[in-house]
């Protein structure tokens, strides 16, 4: 073994390098676990009456008020234009955690047992899952901003006569009446993105490694 230290054999190099892509993949997968602790997304509102913004953090399994009572206070304001209350529970909150756990288990299985090509498969799969999640988020936002009670006290219309919608932006900042709404990823999402990128990078590194 002494000789191996100064002149490592081909197989040792390969072993060590394989470990690098594998480690990257595994760490990337583990980072998804942050989603159970950290919020994925944030929607916040500023208004003249709210110099300190109010808003909510969206987790994979719940919606949490940014400050205590924020959701109650958003609901109070939104009821004037006929919007529904922000639900405490969405069906998605029951599904999303299993999806995340499933992806993590799959990722770990791939990381430990399968080769680099599967890293790409996992990456594409999580991209699809992410896209589906964003689409689902969009649908909820759309419904939340467009489904208004007929009896709303305040009804605003667009210049073309259609009812004004109160849908927050999917990503970015938008002015809705007296509110400026911000919708941006939060810390949990950055862990997710980093994990995805690591899996993606693990694929290329793994590919390079096999050329030795």
């Amino acid at each position, binding site marked *: 073994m002494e000789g191996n230290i100064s002149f490592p054999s081909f197989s040792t190099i390969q072993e060590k390098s394989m470990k690098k892509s594998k480690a990257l993949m595994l760490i990337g997968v583990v980072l998804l676990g942050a989603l159970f602790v950290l919020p994925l997304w944030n929607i916040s509102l500023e208004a003249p009456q709210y110099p300190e913004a109010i808003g909510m953090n969206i987790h994979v399994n719940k919606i949490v008020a940014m400050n*205590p*009572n924020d959701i*109650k*206070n958003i609901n*109070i*304001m939104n009821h*004037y234009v006929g919007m529904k209350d922000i639900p405490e529970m969405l069906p998605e909150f029951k599904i999303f955690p299993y999806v995340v756990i499933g992806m993590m288990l799959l990722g770990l299985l791939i990381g430990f047992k399968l080769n680099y090509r599967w890293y790409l498969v996992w990456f594409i799969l999580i991209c699809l899952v992410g896209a589906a999640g964003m689409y689902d988020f969009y649908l909820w936002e759309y419904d939340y901003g467009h489904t208004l009670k007929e009896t709303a*006290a*305040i009804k605003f219309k667009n210049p073309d006569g259609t009812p004004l919608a109160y849908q927050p932006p999917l990503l970015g900042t938008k002015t809705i009446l007296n509110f400026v709404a911000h919708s941006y990823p939060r810390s949990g999402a950055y862990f997710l993105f980093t994990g995805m990128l690591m899996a993606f990078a693990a694929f290329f590194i793994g590919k390079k490694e096999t050329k030795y």
Partner: protein
Amino acid sequence: MKKIFKKSFLLLLSAAIFTACSNGKKSDSGALSGSAAEKVYVKPGDHDEFYAFISGGFSGQLAVYGLPSGRLFKVIPVFSQDAEKAYGYNEETKPMLNTSHGFVPWDDSHHPDISQTAGELDGRYLFINGNNTPRIAKVDLTTFETTEIIEVPNSAGNHSSSFVTENTEYVVAGTRFSVPVPQRDMPINEYKGNFKGALSFISVDPEDGEMDIKFQIIMPGFNYDLSHPGRGDSHGWFFFTTYNTEEASTLLEVNASQNDKDFIAAINWKKVEAYVNGGGGKKMPANYAHNVYSEETHTATSTMKKSVTVVDPREIPGAVYLLPTPKSPHGCDVDPSGEYIVGSGKLSSNLTVHSFSNMIKAIDEENFDGDAYGIPILSFDAVNTGTVEQAGLGPLHTEFDGEGNAYTTFFISSEVVKWKLGTWEVVDRKPTYYSVGHLMIPGGNSRKPFGKYVVAMNKITKDRYLPTGPEVTQSAQLFDISGDKMELLLDFPTIGEPHYAAGIPADLIAKNSKKFYALEDNKHPYAVKNEADTRVERKGKDVHIYMTTIRSHFAPDNIEGIKVGDKVYFHVTNLEQDYDVPHGVSMIGANTSELLIMPGQTETFTWEPKQVGVWPFYCTDFCSALHQEMQGYVRVSPRSSTLPLSWSLGEDIE
């Protein structure tokens, strides 16, 4: 922040140069001073540097201002009913104004003082005295509400009050008028030797701040005018000015002004405390109210206390001494080091300064000059350390800047005079407009004054503002004292008569200011925490409405089945949990005030309908865009009606 400083510095500099060049006048406070307007200008949206709590005198209240702007933020109701906030009108706060004389809806509020820890302001509580029906109130500085009032027995004209000791061990209340103790039917002209003056030491619980009269020292029948605590080396002592040592009961303006010297009474309260803790003193039957407002139930309770511990000072050797002080002294002020005790002989042109260390030495050497009712009188020459000669006319009160300077008000010559501790030389004087009483430097009654400003409080304003008929405002005047010379910056009107004030840096209080009450913590017996639980219940002629408010409706808002002759209790819970969203409520013909209910709070008013009809109620605080829609109706039927109680929201009553 630095940028702002630089900018304003440049502005000030150029302003000063400009002024200096254009009219050749030189500013008293040096080349760097800008215009007074710049110094008091607090940009819209910016906050003031200090809170000033200014007593409302005969208004019975306490006003909260910002310094240096002089902007009024709030009037805290303390001793008087306040229809705006329903204080003393709603069922919850009526007990706050209960006394042994029954419900007393007014008092004369005098001397606010902020709680201290280790001799420095800690910003937890503010204490203030009711002068007329002797009471001490505590204001919680997280809610800016009066949360406790204790009546002071054996006392009258509760004036040498409500000053705190270094660690808020006690808030002290002294009687201005001596009275028979205990009260009894006796000839007034037998005052001398029979009337007594009670000095009350009210303990403040270190945890919850609850007040309790620990002991009363029963002193000779003088008038105990003002007081201040010792600090530093003199911590453990309390000093009271006296006048009417002649013990006159009539035409005091002449008869109480005959003695060349009255006294400052020095009380070693630690000695008295130890004596009482050791079982000393007597439990004396008494009857006085102790009113406590609970933040949990949003309700005050009034308890009558039936005894008080009284102490005869002659039974505690070394507890009380009298320091001769010329000319009916009024203010009794102790400098930040605790060494100097300034007596302001109000009929004199001089200020008398006693030294604490001289006093201790005189006590040790038994340098006495007789006694009064067995209380040793110390030799004037032994305790006196200096006199500020011919400083002005009618000195009243002194505050300190912590830089070795003292500032004294002179009522008759209407001015504030700055002088130096130790050399007793007058270094500056500025007129006040007019007839100044107290003055205040933030932290001026503590080991650590914050300097910078002095606020002088005037009794008379005459021509200073637009006239408002025979009654014109009292005023406060703000001086910049950061330079060698005082500079008048601002005049502003006050609520009632400002007797004294307490100032504190805003950052010691603002961060603790409560935004709303948590609904889940509300333990009011008539609270409802959601609309589903709202209801109306009848108990004989009493009808209880469990009502809620939230933007922008009452629940319920239609009520039927009320009858003429009923007593209707509106128990209204504000379900909001947002900052600055109170709701108000008032009912046509209710013989009381509106309610103004903070988020999470429950308040109650009563209504006794006298006429058949359908009567509306509405929200009185512009709460939201649909505030005007926030209203409801109560149907009142004849006494003989059999219509059952019913209520609804959002649908017709069937």
